[in-house]
């Protein structure tokens, strides 16, 4: 080898050693700084310290080796001081893999993270009590009290006085009317928005201003879960100045989105940057005009979101202490691992996301109810929950998740991997070990639902375990999957549901929902459903939903599979996390 080559190699090696040494040094010394360098405007002192630190660093480099250790000690001390100062300033750093899909306009936003941010920055008339087991306990928010008539189609609200939007605009009844009128008016132009999805136009007839602080809703139908709808993010009260009647706003790049003035929630959105349609930077500042400041909310001055693009990286970040909290999505595997890590704390909560098995009932083999029941009996929910979700999901035997009004264990009747029932019923339908029941089982393959492929594999295994069923697995990405659903070409498929408002009303109809395209319809079930919607009598409602489940077990059009659970991981000490069935993360309650 040539000298020059040797020297290049040596130089490169030296370069690697030097740069990694420098890197390790810089990381160890400055990594504590990293959590603190965020907000230049409020943390001028720390920035000042940082600049002098850097100039000191430069000085150290130019000076002799003797002074080095001394300087380093001083530096470390100063860093500790900066850190202490910042901790007092109460910044919560949240790591997430989520991203706002599109917009923060309540008239359009319809994704988890968009709603999550909206909840921190916006106010609704009522809100669900944190920790409520059923999700049906409501607290006053922008309204102080409310009442409805016997028929449940006229609802009156007395509004909180003295509330201002974050720009100082006084809140009154006209804003409530404006918000709902706008949401309904925008439905034709944004049919993919939440108000359309929740059917505001089918529920609300009109909104009437009865006084400066009194508002009345006239509904088209008798509707008991109305408070649930009002507590959802699509009912966020908007500031007319920033939400023109006929226009969607609050998208990134829109200056109004970055101006912290639009809503009346505990926080204001002070920073929002996106790259290539994904969030890279979101920062929330405490709203100085928040109505509940007196009670000490929000408890943290700043919430900073850090965006990781995969769960593995997020896990490494929480383990390294780079973030105070990791919420959505640490994988089941990782969260099980993390439970053994003494440096982090895992918070568990109920889940509301469910998945269910759908049969195409318009043609053979699943036009035969016996075949549907036989296949249902052969499913093994426990195996999926244990193997795929490591016990972090629970088998679901009713379309209404546990904790909620009307939850039953109806499908227990058919059992899990109940092959005796399967073989008996299939024998009646003419299938046996030589003439197996054959069908395609479809799953979604682009990650729209968690672990779809793995789930499908377990379902297939359980079904074929009966010895009389043969399953062909097929998959399509989300676009293709939805098209296949609409074209009704899939024999059996797995679908999922995420509630818009926490009420059995938002689940029970799944058995016969036309957009699932199972071609199943049962008038009795729908009559029971409508009856349950029109009463506030919980015992009666419970009974009605139980009856719906009963029919569902006999029909097996849509079969509940499992319900997720929720978890968050924090580095202690962090308190005030409520993971209840609403799936909401209320950041204003969290404190260190």
């Amino acid at each position, binding site marked *: 080898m040539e000298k020059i080559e040797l020297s290049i190699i040596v130089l490169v090696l030296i370069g690697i050693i030097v740069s990694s040494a420098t890197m390790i040094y810089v990381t160890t010394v400055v990594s504590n700084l990293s959590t603190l360098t965020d907000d230049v405007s409020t943390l001028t002192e720390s920035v000042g310290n940082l600049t002098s630190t850097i100039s000191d660093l430069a000085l150290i480099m130019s000076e002799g080796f003797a002074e080095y250790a001394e300087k380093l000690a001083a530096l470390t001390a100063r860093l500790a001081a900066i850190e202490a100062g910042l901790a007092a300033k109460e910044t919560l750093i949240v790591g997430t893999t989520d991203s706002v899909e599109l917009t923060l306009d309540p008239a359009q936003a319809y994704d988890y993270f968009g709603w999550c941010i909206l909840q921190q920055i916006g106010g609704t008339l009522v809100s669900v009590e944190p920790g409520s087991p059923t999700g049906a306990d409501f607290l006053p928010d922008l309204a102080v009290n409310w009442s409805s008539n016997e028929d449940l189609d006229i609802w009156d609200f007395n509004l909180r006085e003295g509330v201002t939007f974050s720009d100082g605009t006084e809140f009154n009844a006209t804003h409530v009317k404006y918000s709902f009128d706008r949401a309904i008016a925008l439905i034709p132009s944004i049919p993919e928005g939440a108000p359309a999805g929740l059917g505001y136009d089918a529920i609300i007839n009109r909104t009437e201003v009865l006084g400066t602080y009194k508002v009345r809703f006239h509904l088209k139908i008798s509707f008991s879960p109305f408070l649930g709808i009002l507590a959802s993010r699509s009912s966020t009260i908007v500031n007319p100045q920033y939400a023109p009647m006929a226009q969607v706003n609050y998208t990134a790049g829109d200056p109004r989105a970055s101006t912290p003035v639009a809503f009346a929630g505990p926080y204001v959105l002070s920073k929002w940057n996106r790259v290539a349609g994904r969030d890279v930077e979101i920062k929330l500042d405490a709203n100085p005009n928040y109505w509940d400041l007196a009670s000490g909310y929000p408890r943290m001055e700043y919430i900073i979101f850090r965006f990781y693009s*995969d*769960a*593995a*990286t997020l*896990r*490494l970040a929480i383990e390294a202490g780079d973030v105070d909290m990791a919420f959505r999505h640490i*994988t089941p*595997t*990782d969260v099980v*691992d993390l439970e053994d890590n003494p440096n982090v704390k895992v918070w568990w909560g109920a889940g509301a996301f469910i998945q269910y098995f759908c049969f195409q009932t318009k043609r053979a083999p699943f036009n035969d109810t016996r075949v549907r029941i036989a296949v249902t009996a052969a499913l093994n929910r426990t*195996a999926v929950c244990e*193997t*795929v979700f*490591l016990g972090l999901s629970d088998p679901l035997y009713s379309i209404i998740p546990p904790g909620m009004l009307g939850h039953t264990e109806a499908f227990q009747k058919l059992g899990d991997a109940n092959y005796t029932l399967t073989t008996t019923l299939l024998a009646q339908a003419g299938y046996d070990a030589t003439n197996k029941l054959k069908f395609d089982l479809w799953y979604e*393959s*682009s*990650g729209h639902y968690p672990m779809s*492929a*793995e789930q*499908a*594999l*377990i379902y*297939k*295994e359980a079904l074929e375990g009966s010895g009389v069923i043969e399953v062909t*697995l*097929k*998959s*399509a*990405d989300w676009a*293709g999957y939805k098209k296949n659903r609409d074209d009704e070409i899939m024999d059996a498929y797995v679908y999922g549901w995420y509630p818009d408002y926490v009420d059995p009303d938002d689940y029970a109809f799944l058995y016969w929902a036309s957009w699932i395209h199972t071609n199943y319809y049962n008038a009795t079930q729908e009559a029971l459903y409508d009856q349950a919607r029109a009463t506030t009598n919980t015992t009666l409602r419970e009974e009605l939903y139980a009856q719906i489940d009963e029919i569902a077990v006999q029909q097996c059009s849509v079969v509940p599979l499992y319900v997720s659970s929720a978890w968050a991981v924090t580095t202690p000490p962090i308190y005030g996390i409520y993971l209840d069935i609403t799936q909401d993360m209320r950041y204003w309650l969290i404190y260190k």
Partner: protein
Amino acid sequence: MTSLTKKGPSGWIVILGTIIVSALVIMTAIAPWIAPHDPAKTRVGPIREPPSPQFPMGTTHLGQDMLSRILCGGSIMLQVSTLSVLVCFLIGVPLGLFSSYVGGVFDRACSLVIDAVYAFPGLVIAIAISAMLGRGVVNMALSIAVVYIPSYFRVVRSQVLSIKELTYVEAARGIGAKWYTILFRYVFPNVIPSIVVVATINFADAILTAAGLTFIGLGVEIHIPDWGRDLTSGWQYLSSGAWWIIAFPGIMIILLALGFTLIGEGLSELLNPKLQR
């Protein structure tokens, strides 16, 4: 084979590559009989169990036996690569022969299209086509084939253009041979060596592209054991440190691709007069 060994290191490289490839092919072929477990069966052991005497390569995140999956997992890649090479060969070679022999506008048009595809990141095209066609071995092979047809076309074309002017071809034309006689009797045999080299490289590339497509989520269904899928799903459990789900399938893919690369490299060196000293 013996004549290959006499050609020095290049010959040995070809032999080594052939041994690797045939070993893997045989392994995949007899895998159903020698695999200790059903490769797709879940919970044959604990979940994510590190290599142990009972499970020499550990288990996957669904408790499948990694060893069985390694033994059986090559068939998809072999099928995809073979099929794509076949398609490339059947389309690229005749197209190249014909286009360059005929010349004129047709040739120019073909070249323009082919060059456009060639100059472009192949994976983007493969991903787009694969997403369009859906899953499955055939669809994967087709989307890969589209990317590699230009290589065949270009090699054939450049060869034909030089061969076309050779005296004996001129002579054949002089005695009134039909164009297809000239093309297949005189020109085609001379192109074969270069095509073989391209084909072996194509094999290796097809395997890597298939793995890449699987990695992006466009692979085959989950109940079919596949190295690419295991590697991909292992990656999702990276942070839990389950190295065996990643390492073994990865090494197998490398071996298979390496086998073909060695054959291709050895052959091209044998056939490249520039490097013969």
